[in-house]
């Protein structure tokens, strides 16, 4: 190649690395579906071709590996990496089903107090250099575990169920997060039939207090428990309401302008029978 002029320094320098997005999945209240959401959203993003790293920040009570079916493949965990007992590459476990998805599991026999916040921040930064998305599964509560999970993230997805205690706790967390994290809301475990009967809070009831941009609503399905127990996230499927909901949410997270998924109020046969005979089902 002929050199027409001296190459300026700027061109010789390497191109800037495009940092991935670091999103913490949190709620305050336990059991609303943070881990399931992290696993499914991560899977859905990876299925779209993005490079995704999932980080389980629930030291001592790790569960993300179970939900992905990877518990037997974990050799090194978060604390091993933070304490430099293992390299990041050795600890990252490749997902069974999605090529571009990796997991950094939490430690089981350690305590949250052992996580150094600055090192956690540096770890997330390192992951952002090699991934399009880093999703951090936050533990329940608002103690040290929560503070460490949000270190290094700059966005948040809050997960809430249509229950007054969950709304109370999520509101607290959103207050603690502040505007910096631009939190968005996923409402989980909605049962449209119960909402219709006035026996469950509606999406409007929940967001009347939380006032957050809504990423999506996911209906309660026994399938979710089954697939969680089996370690196969629902988002691996191409059909089914829940799988579609996660795919839509992934698209929205990626910036596509698609409407937020909301479960339809389909009346099931049992409901029709129930109302015909009157009274409660046993």
């Amino acid at each position: 190649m002929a050199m027409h002029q001296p190459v300026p320094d700027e061109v010789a320098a390497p191109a800037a690395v495009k940092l991935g997005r670091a999103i913490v999945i949190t709620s305050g209240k336990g059991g609303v579906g943070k881990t399931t959401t992290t696993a499914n959203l991560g899977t859905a993003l990876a299925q779209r071709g993005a490079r995704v790293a999932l980080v389980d920040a629930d030291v001592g009570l790790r569960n993300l590996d179970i939900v992905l079916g990877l518990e037997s493949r974990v050799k090194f965990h978060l604390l091993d990496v933070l304490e430099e007992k293992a390299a990041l590459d050795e600890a990252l476990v490749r997902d069974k089903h999605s090529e571009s998805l990796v997991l950094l599991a939490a430690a089981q026999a350690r305590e949250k107090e052992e996580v150094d916040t600055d090192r956690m921040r540096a770890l997330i930064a390192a992951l952002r250099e090699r991934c399009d998305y880093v999703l951090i599964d936050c533990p329940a509560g608002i103690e040290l575990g929560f503070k460490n999970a949000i270190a290094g993230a700059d966005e948040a997805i809050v997960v809430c169920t249509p229950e007054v205690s969950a709304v109370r706790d999520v509101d607290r967390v959103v207050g603690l997060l502040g505007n910096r994290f631009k939190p968005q809301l996923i409402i989980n475990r909605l049962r449209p039939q119960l909402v219709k009967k006035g026996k469950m809070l509606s999406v409007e009831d929940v967001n009347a207090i939380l006032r957050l941009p809504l990423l999506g609503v996911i209906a309660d399905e026994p399938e979710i428990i089954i697939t969680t127990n089996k370690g196969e996230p629902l988002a691996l499927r191409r059909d089914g309401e829940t799988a579609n909901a996660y795919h839509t949410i992934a698209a929205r997270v990626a910036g596509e302008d698609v409407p937020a998924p909301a479960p339809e109020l389909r009346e099931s046969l049992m409901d029709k029978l129930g109302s015909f005979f009157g009274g409660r089902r046993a």
Partner: protein
Amino acid sequence: MSLLRGRGLGLEIHLAGWDFDAAIAELAARLSERPDFYRGTSATAIAGETPPSPEQLDVLRETLASAGIELHGVRQRVLKLSDSARSLVADFAGARADIAERRKRGEASVRRTNAAPAAPAPALQLAPPAPGTLYHVGTLRGGQALHHPGNIVVVGDVNPGTELVATGDIVVFGRLLGVAHAGAQGDDTAKVYALHLQATQLRIATCIALDEDRAHDASEPEVAFVRDGRIAIAPFSKVAEVAG
């Protein structure tokens, strides 16, 4: 808190949290750094929980005088609000027992009335400078608290699980769903205003009220005030003439 603060009208010497002798030593050292800087100014000492003794005041006066500063007066820092709000013979347990009694008699804790609160008596003497108003824009979320020696204005909602404590009035330009305590140091002429008044609990001075009427959905702005020793709520349109 730092010992010396310059204010528009003179120097403030913040003694709260300082051992008095250490404060004097520090003050002397600071003044000797810039011997003539403060010459001719006046100073106010602001004491913490314990006001200085006359002997201590003399020492302070002399220390200042040697730098050409005149000690103008001594003020006491306002008690931590939560302490005063709680300790203020505020045996809220007593108020709760009262509410229980009323409930037995079938009286609601909070009276809704169309009567306006009485206009406050005109001031006959120079009132002390009005305490500042804390002005907050944005929704307050559960677990957050605003405590202020003065009035509080929130432009936004106050969610359940939030606490507002003010020595003066509370104004919420939004929905008030949390706990609001106005007149926290005993001023029972304090009021609570909201565009949508549905507080978990209302407190004014030593009065406390629960809004038992869950079905109530305020469609207009309302104000809560004390009348006959109990908290009452009236539509704001009826009391707009009360300037206060």
